[in-house]
């Protein structure tokens, strides 16, 4: 059996690899062998070799050198080998693989293979190594596979679309309609795949998918597949924060699911989503306590379960509730504290997370005490470190909100320094510094504790073991130095800091030591000079001089530098002291001033001052031309400088004063300039400023000095006593005087009611962090510009534009883009194309503008607004109205609320006003309504703008800005021909890219009950105008329409025409032939039509600035002509809109009832118009580079205006 032997070959090799240690020599021998095999012609040998390589790859060997061989195997005709090739490719190909571009055609071939498994293997492989290029080239092929007959292929094609979207975001919009359709695929696997993809997309940019909510809602109530349900429920969790009304709707079915399901996974996700809903509702509706209770109850069951997994998840979900409904969680404190003792570290960590949100002023000390006992018990350092950070997090959260006694906190921090081998020394140090700087009242106590720390030897000793706790000394030294005036025994501390052992500390700590020794020294000097103990002062100086040299010898640059500098200084002081000169004042002047904390984001928030251009060159960039002589330049430069120097003294006093003022101003704005006076920034409103913290005058009942290193436990007792006393006192006072009560409270906006009774023990003066003045209130600091998902933030509800098509490898013209699959799915085509109709009315350029401005659509650019107003082409971002939900609610017994119904009624009114010719789907109705809202909004904007006449006069007034009345909807599609079978409407668009080419879009609407197919459009070419036909066909052949029309369906086809001369309008005769098929049989039908190319259809809306416009008119190259139309009742704004819309002009400038307009033909003719409106009449003066074109245009315009 040869097969067996060969399989053994693979196995034997693999058994080799198995040998532990994997001798490199053996592997290289294997690779050599594989290389030999790859060189053979036989594909089976190659495939075998590639298979072995895949195994090697798993073991961590680079196999990218065989990429080409892998491609060879991929292109094998047999499935067996192909599969091996694709597997290897999926394991080792990536974006950087250069041969990957060779695979495009192979993959395309496999995708369209008749065998479903070939296709499947190609899809699977591609999903792992798709690159932007591959995605672009294959998107269309994959999209057709989405409607493959086999569900096996469909589901794979649907899933891979997500990868394609990621790599090629442009494909999202064209493919989305079909993806949406797959949500209702008969096959559950395909459905699940579609849900999967949309959930994944929506997770990143949920707001674009809100409009799908009704569909998902339906799926949720109908689906029985738990996977799908979980995905949908998760998706709703992401959507609810954006639309609270959705949440209300969800609560009921979700609660039902919670009650009914037996699958824990589903239950858990339901609870999660209910929580998300409640969070989103919490602001508006407080009456969901029942749901919260249900959730908490269910979670408690999970947490109490013996299954550790459920316990873990329960805690995880609990922490989400905690954020918004802390009270309902706090009642389960016992349970959570119990979880702290769990043997499972993951569970303990989760419980810790929960604790963070459960603390209050009352229980903080108790909880921290409990955590401290865990710290002592904890065996693993990682968990202990985690505990440590959690303790610090809990205590320091929201600006030390819950700490009532900072002495207790400092002693906790000091206790934490006893931990051996923790990595978080720097964290403790940072806390010490922060507290000492920001809480002024605690400084005295902090200093006493820190000096004790400096004294104790264990920290210094531990530094030799290279662990992080010695970082604490950094803070200790700094605090002792900076606040040395509070030191009880400065001498002793000075000695401690100058001990020889200090030199074993890391460099940066030593540096702080050196610097702060001087601060300490300065304050000692001061004290002693005041006490007139000159000898003692000299003694201290002597100590300094003796001890400092040990630092001068330090290997650390910073330490060395500081030490030698300071040594010299002290020596100088010594000399002065010997002479009896008082020096203390001068020495302490070195450290005058106070440090204030600066907010971490302060630097970023400094606004760029007006008039400062950061991109401008400070000096002129060096010129590139080398021909310029250097010397004369230098002389000139010199001269200028001399002049400048000469001028300087002339600056008078006033100027100097002004400058000083300016500088002061500048310094005030500079966050890093340390001010002498209390900074005005403290008035900054966002953060709780100093004045927000009421100063409580209480006799300190806690002794400020606890001998030795204190135990934090003592504080717990003391604190209880203190609180008790306080309560008594308060009761007394209450009885005496009710008004006085407020005085003893902390700020009333504090969160929990029960907390406010507890007054802090210290005079808490938490200095807020400074922010620069006029700080920009932006929160967009943390966005990563490289986020790949950002590109997928695409509005999916906007109708598709022409330009948005998946690239097809064939000829670009519309006539040629007929693919065989399209015939299978006429309905899809219709869906995706229908919105296009509306879009069509606009020029390509404006569409692109639309996209850009989508986000800032309410911006001042009313020009843009006007041009998009007539048809509802640019819908605002989808606001999923309850209307849709309401409609879908018919399928469920849920209650429909009142609001939506009313909205719907309004909608119907709207519809009644519409042109009866148009058939509006519900979807469009909504859009139209929204668009109206939009309009009114814009108008408001305009009103606001009006009070600035100067601006209005200066800038060009945009189209119709001042008008009040809405513009009626317009359509540029006009009837081409009609019979009992079919109705054709058309529109002609010119594009600037191709001069002398226009695209005719024809909407074919099947009016009969027969099925129309084999449609073919033929036009009798004239000398001037020719239809573009597929290559190889003669001028008499028709162009097939790339779709079929079932009864009642309409679709749009595009045809390209080449035009020689555009100055004259012209008509082309044509015929549409088709086969109408109904129950009785098929008949061949024909419909004749005349295609009218007006001169306006050759114009392209081109924006023009008024100065360019003026130049154009001045040039005198233009011939002139004019018309007058009487009996016009329409408002001027609408009139302009009409001209813009039908004749493709843009408004350059508008003053009162006079406007200048501009457009350009595809062959580059400029057309300028001056439109004036009098009483019931309009005059149009035109100028154009071609007089025939102009007169023709004006004639057409006259016809349009006559209808007004």
């Amino acid at each position, binding site marked *: *059996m*040869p*097969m067996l*032997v*060969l399989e053994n*070959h*693979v196995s034997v090799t*693999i*058994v*080799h690899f*198995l040998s*532990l240690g994997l001798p490199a020599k053996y592997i290289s021998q294997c690779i050599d062998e594989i290389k030999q095999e790859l060189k053979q012609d*036989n594909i*089976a*040998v190659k*495939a*075998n070799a590639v*298979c072995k390589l*895949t195994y090697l*790859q*798993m073991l*961590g060997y*680079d196999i990218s050198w065989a990429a080409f061989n892998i491609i060879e195997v991929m292109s094998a005709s*047999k*499935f067996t080998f192909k*599969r*091996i090739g694709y*597997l290897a490719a999926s*394991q080792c190909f*990536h*974006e*950087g693989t250069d041969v990957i571009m060779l695979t495009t055609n192979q993959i395309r071939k496999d995708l369209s293979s008749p065998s479903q*498994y070939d296709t499947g293997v190609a899809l*699977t492989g591609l*999903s792992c190594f798709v690159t932007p290029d591959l995605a672009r080239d294959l998107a269309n092929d994959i999209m057709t596979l989405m409607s493959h007959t086999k569900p096996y292929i469909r*589901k794979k094609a649907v*899933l*891979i679309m*997500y*990868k394609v979207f990621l790599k090629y975001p442009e494909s999202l919009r064209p493919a989305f309609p079909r993806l949406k359709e797959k949500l209702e695929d008969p096959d559950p*696997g395909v459905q*699940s*795949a579609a849900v*999967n993809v949309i959930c994944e997309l929506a*997770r990143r940019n949920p707001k674009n998918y809100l409009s799908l909510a009704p569909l998902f809602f339906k799926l949720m109530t109908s689906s029985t597949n*738990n*996977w799908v349900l979980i995905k949908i429920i*998760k998706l709703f969790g992401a959507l609810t924060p954006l639309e609270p009304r959705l949440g209300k709707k969800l609560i009921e079915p979700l609660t039902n699911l919670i009650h009914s399901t037996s*699958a*824990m*996974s589903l239950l*858990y*996700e339901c609870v999660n989503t209910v929580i998300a809903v409640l969070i989103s509702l919490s602001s508006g509706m407080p009456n969901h306590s029942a749901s919260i209770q249900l959730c908490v109850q269910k979670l408690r069951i999970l947490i109490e379960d013996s299954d*550790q*997994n459920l*316990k*873990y998840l329960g805690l995880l979900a609990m922490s989400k509730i905690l954020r918004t409904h802390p009270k309902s969680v706090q009642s389960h404190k016992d349970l959570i504290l119990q979880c702290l003792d769990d*043997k499972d570290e*993951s569970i303990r960590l989760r419980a810790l997370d929960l604790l963070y949100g459960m603390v209050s002023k009352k229980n903080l000390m108790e909880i921290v005490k409990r955590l401290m006992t865990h710290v002592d018990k904890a065996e693993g350092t990682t968990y202990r470190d985690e505990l440590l950070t959690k303790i610090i997090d809990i205590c320091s959260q929201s600006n030390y909100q819950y700490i009532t006694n900072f002495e207790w906190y400092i002693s906790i921090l000091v206790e934490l320094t006893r931990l051996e081998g923790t990595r978080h020394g720097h964290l403790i140090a940072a806390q010490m510094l922060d507290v000492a700087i920001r809480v002024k009242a605690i400084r005295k106590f902090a200093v006493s504790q820190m000096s004790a720390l400096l004294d104790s030897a264990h920290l210094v000793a531990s530094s030799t073991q290279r662990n992080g706790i010695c970082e604490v000394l950094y803070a200790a030294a700094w605090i002792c130095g900076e606040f040395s005036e509070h030191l009880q025994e400065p001498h002793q501390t000075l000695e401690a800091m100058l001990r020889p052992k200090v030199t074993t500390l890391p460099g940066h700590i030593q540096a702080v030591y050196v610097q702060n020794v001087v601060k300490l020294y300065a304050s000692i000097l001061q004290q002693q000079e005041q006490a007139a103990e000159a000898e003692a002062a000299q003694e201290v100086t002597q100590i300094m001089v003796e001890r400092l040299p040990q630092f001068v010898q330090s290997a650390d640059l910073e330490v060395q530098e500081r030490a030698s500098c300071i040594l010299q200084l002290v020596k100088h002081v010594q000399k002065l002291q010997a002479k009896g000169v008082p020096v203390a004042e001068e020495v302490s002047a070195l450290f005058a001033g106070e440090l204030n904390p600066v907010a971490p984001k302060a630097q970023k928030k400094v606004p760029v001052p007006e008039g400062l251009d950061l991109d401008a060159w400070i000096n002129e960039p060096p010129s590139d031309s080398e021909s310029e002589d250097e010397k004369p330049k230098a002389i000139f430069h010199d001269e200028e400088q001399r002049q400048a120097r000469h001028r300087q003294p002339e600056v008078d006093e006033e100027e100097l004063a002004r400058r000083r003022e300016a500088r002061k101003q500048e310094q005030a704005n500079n966050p890093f300039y340390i001010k002498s006076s209390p900074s005005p920034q403290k008035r900054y409103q966002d953060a709780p400023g100093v004045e927000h913290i009421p100063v409580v005058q209480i006799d300190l009942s806690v002794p400020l000095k606890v001998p030795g290193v204190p135990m934090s436990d003592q504080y717990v007792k003391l604190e209880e006593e203190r609180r008790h006393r306080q309560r008594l006192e308060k009761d007394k006072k209450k009885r005496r005087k009710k008004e006085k009560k407020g005085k003893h409270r902390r700020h009333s906006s504090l969160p929990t009611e029960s907390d406010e009774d507890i007054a802090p023990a210290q005079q808490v003066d938490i200095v807020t962090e400074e922010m620069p003045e006029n700080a920009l209130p932006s929160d967009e600091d943390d966005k990563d510009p490289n986020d*790949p998902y950002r590109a997928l933030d695409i509005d999916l509800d906007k109708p598709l534009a022409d330009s948005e098509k998946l690239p097809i490898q064939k000829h670009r013209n519309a006539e040629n883009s007929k693919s065989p699959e399209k015939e299978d799915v006429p309905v899809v085509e219709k869906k995706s194309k229908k919105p296009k109709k509306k879009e069509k009315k606009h020029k390509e350029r404006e569409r692109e503008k639309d996209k850009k401005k989508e986000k800032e659509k309410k911006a001042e650019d009313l020009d843009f607004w006007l041009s998009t107003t007539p048809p509802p082409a640019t819908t605002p971002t989808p606001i999923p109205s309850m209307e849709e939900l309401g409609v879908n609610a018919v399928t469920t017994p849920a209650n429909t609320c009142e609001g939506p119904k009313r909205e719907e009624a309004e909608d119907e009114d709207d519809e009644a006003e519409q042109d009866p010719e148009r058939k509006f789907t519900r979807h469009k109705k909504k859009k139209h309504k929204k668009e109206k809202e939009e309009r009114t909004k814009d108008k408001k904007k305009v009103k606001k703008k009006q009070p600035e006449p100067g601006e209005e006069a200066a800038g060009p007034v945009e189209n119709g800005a001042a008008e009040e009345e809405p513009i009626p909807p317009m359509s540029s599609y006009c009837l081409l021909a009609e019979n009992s079978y079919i109705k054709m409407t058309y529109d002609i668009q010119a594009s600037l890219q191709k001069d002398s080419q226009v695209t005719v879009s024809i909407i074919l609407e099947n009016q009969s009950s027969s099925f129309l197919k084999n449609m073919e459009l033929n036009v009798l070419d004239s000398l001037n105008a020719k239809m573009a036909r597929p290559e190889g066909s003669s001028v008499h052949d028709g162009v097939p329409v790339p779709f079929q029309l079932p009864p009642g369906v309409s679709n749009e086809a595009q045809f390209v025409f080449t035009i020689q001369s555009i100055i004259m309008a012209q008509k082309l005769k044509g015929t549409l032939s088709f086969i109408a098929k109904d129950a009785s049989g098929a008949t061949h039908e024909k419909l004749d039509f005349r295609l009218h190319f007006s001169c306006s259809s050759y114009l392209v809306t081109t924006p023009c600035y008024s100065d360019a416009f003026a130049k154009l008119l001045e040039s005198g190259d233009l011939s002139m002509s004019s018309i007058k139309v009487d009996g016009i009742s329409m408002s001027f704004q609408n009139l302009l809109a009409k001209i813009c819309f039908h004749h493709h002009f843009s408004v350059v400038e508008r003053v009162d009832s006079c406007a200048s307009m501009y457009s350009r033909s595809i062959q580059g003719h400029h057309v300028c118009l001056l439109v004036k409106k009098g009483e019931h009449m309009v005059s149009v003066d035109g100028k154009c580079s071609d007089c025939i074109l102009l007169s023709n245009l004006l004639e057409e315009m006259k016809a349009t205006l006559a209808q007004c």
Partner: protein
Amino acid sequence: MIQAILVFNNHGKPRLVRFYQRFEWLSFTNPLGKASANFSPLATELDGSVPALQLLQGHICDERAVVQLDRLQPIPQVVDAIVCDKLTVGHTEYSKLRTMYRKLDYRPISCLNIFFQPEEIQQQIVRETFHLVLKRDDNICNFLEGGSLIGGSDYKLIYRHYATLYFVFCVDSSESELGILDLIQVFVETLDKCFENVCELDLIFHMDKVHYILQEVVMGGMVLETNMNEIVAQMEAQNRLEKSEGGLSAAPARAVSAVKNMNLPEIPRNINIGDLNIKVPNLSQFV
């Protein structure tokens, strides 16, 4: 999305490694353990010149390496050397690196990044995951917050332990934790059906088949099918197709002779494969 699927045995030997995301570079600050040995001989050759620094690429560095670099003080050059060689860098990584490069003035050298072969990173991840999972008892929860190597806080490791094998899925927050646990169960049961009493040896000798089964369950990081019967049916259909093509039997005599000529005595004899059968526990109520 599922980011990675790893299967390894009690000794940390990889049995199935499937990444759906690419890891191209790692931070210097990661404690990478043993592998740093590679670097030491190299570091001595460094003289600070750019070509020498380019040697750094693809070598795993640890604190010692940082110290070496610190001694040479060629910070901008190192980064230049790495940044210049765009070939080893993916596009996104490259732009990330650029931003980092800009910030470098304010940062200590330990934030430098060095590029690795993806395979090396994968091995690191397998190793780290193994150590994380090995420490855990059987009766504690099956979720692990992401290790330092895979992703950030958004990622979770979800694993199950069957006999000698650990099945680990690394997923992000879009996946349901309990759902993935059930998916692992489905995957293992499918393996069991396809191989009839699956054991670790099956995974070794039919590495490709295991991948094919996985491909029917998970595609490109997204769950494709959860119905076991459907998966088994598709696998059987593909196996039939392969048989009809004659499988690998079409291989020529040369390959056969290659086996014969192999130096069999060199093959290690004592291969400890361990406890072989995977016990499939009861199905949960899922699917």
